[in-house]
């Protein structure tokens, strides 16, 4: 009897605690108001007669100091409502034909919005031929070219593609629009964000692009070092020196530097992977043979979360990447002139130099970025 009373008391306590902790939107004026929610989780979507509310990006201190303002298209300004809508779409599996995959299925927040698989598997079980790209700091992609081969002009165009790609979400935009239009919440959210409850693919892509522009990573140990908040180890500093030295590893010409904390030039290069090309990359888009084998320079931030590496995910570890640049370079037809000693495979770094370079690269890890999404 005492046991039964104890169990009842325990259950009641659990229910009480769980009901107290239920989170959701607690604003009665919001379209997604949850009467049962006790803790506001910041998800409220409010309509406004005065139009959407401008969204203020949280720009890291190193970005404010060294970089131009983010590139926001004039026809798609960031708004609180647009970003919230984009976030909901990004995680919504209804964007795929069989309702099994969202954008976030291959761009995992825990992996800096990258995929752990070498090739992402689409809804039909088909694998692509390129490794998914991580998503962050795209608001500073000043040349506005997206994907490994630069085929998308702008984030809006990039966001448009995966939904209809037959080896990815394999749906059609009219079908996706129908699903969203029939939803209880989406029409109101589109109304809040864009002033119309009539959903279309352009507005959905704009919302997705808005959300992607809010994915900002600028809080690594190296950022703190630049802000003079911490010191780096001798190994990390030597690695940075090698990174910046033309006679050392010479990574900075393509991968940024202390004044370019994006750690990418956002341009396209042939980095000497193969003697002959099986994937033309940028060249397939421009039609210019001298662009064959060129792929977009990825950011070096958050490498710990983004293996495997290269456009085709051929390297499973960071050590393999460093080995490639040190001694594995191939004299591919359009190999970047910035790569030294291609005939001998590279600059042949010593084991200690490789270790130091890796130590520096890991200072670009921003764990708060993956925890925050």
């Amino acid at each position, binding site marked *: 009897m005492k046991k039964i009373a104890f169990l009842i008391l325990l259950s009641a306590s659990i229910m009480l605690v769980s009901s107290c902790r239920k989170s959701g939107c607690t604003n009665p004026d919001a379209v997604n108001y949850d009467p049962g929610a006790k803790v506001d989780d910041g998800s409220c979507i409010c309509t406004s007669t005065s139009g959407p509310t401008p969204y203020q990006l949280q720009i890291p201190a190193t970005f404010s*100091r*060294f*970089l*131009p303002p983010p590139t926001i298209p004039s026809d798609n300004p960031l708004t609180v409502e647009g970003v919230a809508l984009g976030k909901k779409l990004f995680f919504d599996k209804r964007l795929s034909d069989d309702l099994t995959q969202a954008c976030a299925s291959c761009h995992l927040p825990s992996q800096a919005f990258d995929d752990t698989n070498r090739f992402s598997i689409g809804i039909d079980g088909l694998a692509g031929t390129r490794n998914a790209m991580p998503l962050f700091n795209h608001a*500073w992609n*000043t040349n506005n070219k997206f994907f490994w081969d630069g085929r998308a002009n702008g984030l809006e165009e990039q966001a448009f593609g995966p939904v209809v790609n037959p080896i990815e979400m394999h749906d059609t935009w009219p079908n996706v629009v129908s699903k969203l239009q029939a939803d209880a919440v989406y029409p109101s959210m589109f109304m809040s964000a864009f002033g119309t409850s009539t959903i279309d693919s352009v507005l959905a892509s704009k919302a997705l692009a808005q959300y992607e522009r809010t994915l900002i990573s600028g809080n690594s140990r190296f950022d703190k070092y630049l802000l003079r908040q911490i010191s780096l180890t001798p190994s990390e500093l030597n690695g940075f*020196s090698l990174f*910046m*030295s*033309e*006679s050392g590893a010479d990574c*900075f*010409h*393509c991968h*940024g*530097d*202390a*004044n*370019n904390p*994006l750690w990418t*030039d956002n341009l396209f290069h042939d980095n000497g992977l193969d003697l002959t090309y099986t994937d033309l990359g940028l060249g397939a888009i421009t039609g*210019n*043979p*001298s*662009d064959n084998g060129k792929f977009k320079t990825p950011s070096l931030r958050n490498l710990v979360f983004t293996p495997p590496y290269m456009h085709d995910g051929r390297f499973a570890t960071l050590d393999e990447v460093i080995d490639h640049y040190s001694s594995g370079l191939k*004299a591919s037809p*359009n*190999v*970047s*002139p*910035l*790569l*030294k*000693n*291609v*005939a001998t495979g590279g600059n042949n770094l010593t084991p200690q130099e490789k270790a130091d370079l890796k130590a520096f690269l890991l200072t670009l890890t921003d764990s708060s970025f993956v925890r925050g999404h």
Partner: protein
Amino acid sequence: MKKTLYFMKKTDNSINNTLNLTIKPKTMKKTLIALSALTLIFSSCKEEEPLTPKTTDTSTDVNFVFKQYYDGYEVTAADFGAKQFLNAKGTSHTISKLQYLISDITLHKTDGSEVNLGGYNLIDVSQPLSRFYTPAVQIPEGSYSGVSVTFGFDGNDNKDGAYTDLNAASWSWPMMIGGGYHFMKFEGMFLDNTSTMKGFAYHNGTASKMNPNGTRTAEENHFRVRLWDANGGFQVKSGERMTIDINMNIAEWFKNPILWDLDQYHMMLMPNYTAQKMINQNGRSVLSLGNVTSPTN
């Protein structure tokens, strides 16, 4: 502008103080006159406050167009990686990248005075729009003999990390060899003396010399060139938009006064003091004034 703001603030305080006074009927008329006068002064000041640099009807816009040639052949991005060039030493090479920085453009009048336009422009041949530069400053009408430009940044302007657009373009010059910014990135492939294709990266910026104790001493490495108009000068008339072509003969980087040997100098030129000074010397003949066009020239 600072002075104007200060004056405005003082005026506001004066008005507040005046309004806080108890105004007697006898002095009402005088006070009203004083207030009217103050209002008149205040409003006239506002009207005269310049919001933008004042333009006069005796000045005009000037557009600079940067063009690149290889001994008479105009080079565009379409040639990158595709066309073979032959340098003065007889070495065959391609071009895959050509970017360079021009700053502090000055126009010289025939009376000896100068119009400094300031600013800078990063030309990237693969980005056609970057070849056009319109300074914010308008130029006064008159008779001009030519133009001066700085190739790169001079010591005052070459401040590490100071220009956000150049930072984002990965244009920085490593601090360990002097810091600041690149002045040029000129890259391509060449056929070496063993008939093997090799890359070259002819990069220019601050020169730094290795000291016996392992430290480095940096040295400014920009150069300023005076470009004369081939026709003896040009006229600027008010309201007539000017276009001035500044041409680069890429071949000059390899021949004058130093016959460049790509086999010897093709890589790791940035920390190479001798190479940087050689680039500086050869650079002085690469730029020239091209067509100057306007409705009257």
